[in-house]
């Protein structure tokens, strides 16, 4: 089964909304930054997100991406995951 980055991004929006309790995150563009302005991910929410990603896709982002550059935006994270499945 191949999963596209767009499909992963759709999943990630739902995960983000569930983790943060903010429904409006279901509609964010792919270019939205995950840290700082934008989603404003903190260390707890970010860790929970990566755990769900590992559970769902088998991709250990923290182990493969030292600088967590893949967490720059929703789109970069989706592409990183899709590229490793």
């Amino acid at each position, binding site marked *: 089964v191949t999963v596209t980055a767009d499909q992963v991004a759709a999943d990630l929006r739902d995960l983000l909304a569930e983790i943060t309790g903010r429904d409006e995150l279901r509609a964010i563009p792919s270019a939205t930054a995950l840290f700082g302005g934008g989603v404003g991910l903190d260390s707890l929410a970010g860790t929970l997100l990566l755990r769900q990603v590992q559970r769902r896709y088998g991709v250990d982002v923290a182990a493969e991406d030292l600088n967590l550059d893949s*967490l720059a935006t929703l789109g970069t994270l989706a592409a990183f995951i899709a590229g490793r499945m």
Partner: protein
Amino acid sequence: VASTAAGTSLIKCVVWDIDNTLLDGIYLESGEQPPPPNTVLLGVVRELAGRGVLQAVASKNPPEAAGYVAQLAGLVFAATECGWDAKPDALGRIAARLGVVDAEMAFVDDDMLERAEVAASLPGVLVLTPEDAADAASWPRFSPPVVTAEARHRGELYDDPSADVPRLHELSVRTHQLNSVGEPLTEEELGSMLSSTGHEVTTVRLADDFGDDGLVGAAIGVRVTAAQQAELTVPLVMMSCRALGRGTLDALLAWLCRSAAAAGAARIQVPCRLTERNVPFRMALVAAGFRAEPGSGSPDGRVLFSRPLAGDLPAMPDYVVSPGRP
């Protein structure tokens, strides 16, 4: 009833009891929610502190009780004696630490026996009931002629950081998810860092509507000197899991960046040992703009995360209270 010494010298230090004095209730018997403050007496504490009169606590309670009251009062006590020693002994240690003599001290306690004990052992000390103390701010002995800005800060300057050593040691042993290196430090190592001029130890205390967690985290930095002010290195950052999800680590990292920049450093670096458990710590580092330098990994698994201190620095949340806020 304890007698009140008829002294005339100015009071330089007031030592307060906590249970049924600064708090309307007993700290250890109040279950999940600590008792509310005695707002009248906390008002007196703040007023006197504002005049440069040192405020201290002597209480038969764990140290957390003093931290809780300090948070309620919004100030740092110049000295705290929490334990089960006799009150005269506690007052003696406070006097020695703050450099005041008996005749310059007042002691406030609701317990008649405690007052009697202090009055008998330390006849120079002005011994007061909480009811007496409510009026104390209007008495001449509590009114220094001139209030200087420096005097207002004396409470903070007198605060004794060595009291934090046991808790810092505990944090270095017990924190994993929010710990940069995951290696315990002994009380001796921490004590020497706290007293050394080469290290700068930043501590974080956390209180919110649900209660007071006391000291939840710390960072140990190598002080920026004029000779090598290019980079501030922070060999240890640690934070209790209780603080996870409450923005505390992010606030500490923002504080480190901003105070290093204010001290003239161009760069800040945090050696971080990558473990499966401290992903949240790495996440906070990255969120604060830190990046690992390519090839900076060392054989012991430490990777050097750093960031420049020019341009946009991480924002300090407005709920952070600190002396010399950068």
